[in-house]
């Protein structure tokens, strides 16, 4: 279990580091895509380990625990945000949540149509 957690941690640290380096390289004082890089590192290193036959279900358990924890973490985060100030422009959240979905349904429809004909 703890080995899987260490595996996740090293991917996380390396990804964050890459994001930080990319941020300073781009001249933004921010971490750029650190989470995304960490995910890519995790997938690729897991793939490498699986091919070598080093990947054990025991390793996966430690990571799976955190995988399952992400919704609870988001719930906790939602409860500790400054919602009071956001609510004043609350209609934006509703419109910006629904309108793009409707557009995306149309895009999907036309994409599937053109995909079939070609």
């Amino acid at each position, binding site marked *: 279990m703890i080995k899987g957690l260490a595996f*996740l*941690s090293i991917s*996380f640290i390396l*990804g*964050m580091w890459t994001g930080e380096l990319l*941020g300073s390289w781009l001249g*933004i004082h921010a*971490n750029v*895509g650190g*989470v*995304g890089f*960490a*995910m*890519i590192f*995790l*997938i690729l290193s897991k*793939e490498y380990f699986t091919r070598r036959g080093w990947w054990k279900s025991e390793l*996966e358990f430690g*990571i*799976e625990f955190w*995988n399952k*924890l*992400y*919704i*609870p973490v*988001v*719930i*906790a*985060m*939602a*409860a*500790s*945000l*400054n*919602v009071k*100030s*956001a609510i004043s*422009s609350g*209609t*934006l*959240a*509703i*419109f*910006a*949540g*629904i*309108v*793009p*979905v*409707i*557009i*995306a*349904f149309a*895009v*999907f*429809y036309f*994409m*599937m149509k053109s*995909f*079939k004909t070609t």
Partner: protein
Amino acid sequence: MEELIKIIDKNGLVVAFLLVGLLTWLTDLFSKKILNSRVPGSAIAIFLALAFGYLGGVIGKGENGLADLGLFKGLALLGGSMFRDFAIVATAVGASFLLIRKSGLLGLISLLLGILVFFVAGVAMAWAWGYRDAVSLCTIGAGACTYIVGPVTGGALGASSEVIALSIGTGVVKTIAVTIFTPILASKIGLSTPSAAMAFGGIMGTSSGVAAGLAATDPKLVPYGAVTATFYTGLGCLVCPSLFFLMLDWIF
């Protein structure tokens, strides 16, 4: 009683586990028994948490929502950036490299197209509502992608807590909208084959919304939609605070 308060005060994180667990248990029950799983329990829980965050802001008059009240301060730790980013990275373990290769070109195109459509539409909506600075526009546009891309982008760019909260609210509304619209529109838009489900997951992106929506349409399609949708958030976290932000910064 005094002793219990002392224990609660000392063990904030453990109390946060208990609070979130209780809320999830209740909303899952509510989703299953009353809504027939039409809306995922997690989406209801997130919405309720935002409502509690609002109440916390009204009572505590601080910037951290419910976490400003002594009893609930552990929520700020559990929902803080370290746990949040760590847990999100862990979700990548569910994606298999082989399946991604199989989903191939259509999946990749739909992913890129999906992120672009939601980001541009989200930015346009934010612009229509009067936001003009690139950081806020980018955060809300990212929130239109998913409720995780929003705060990750906002955190990286240093957006205000209000804008981050707004981006999460936007993402949660999106999850619910996808969940509700998918079974209604599925037959009209040709969502009936595995490859269509893969493209659908890539375009819509929200894993919980896609999974719940496809489950209500045809349970056999769920894994195909989920395999591309799991990449949406990671890809969004990669391009929104970097490439898309630079483009917005250049325009505004």
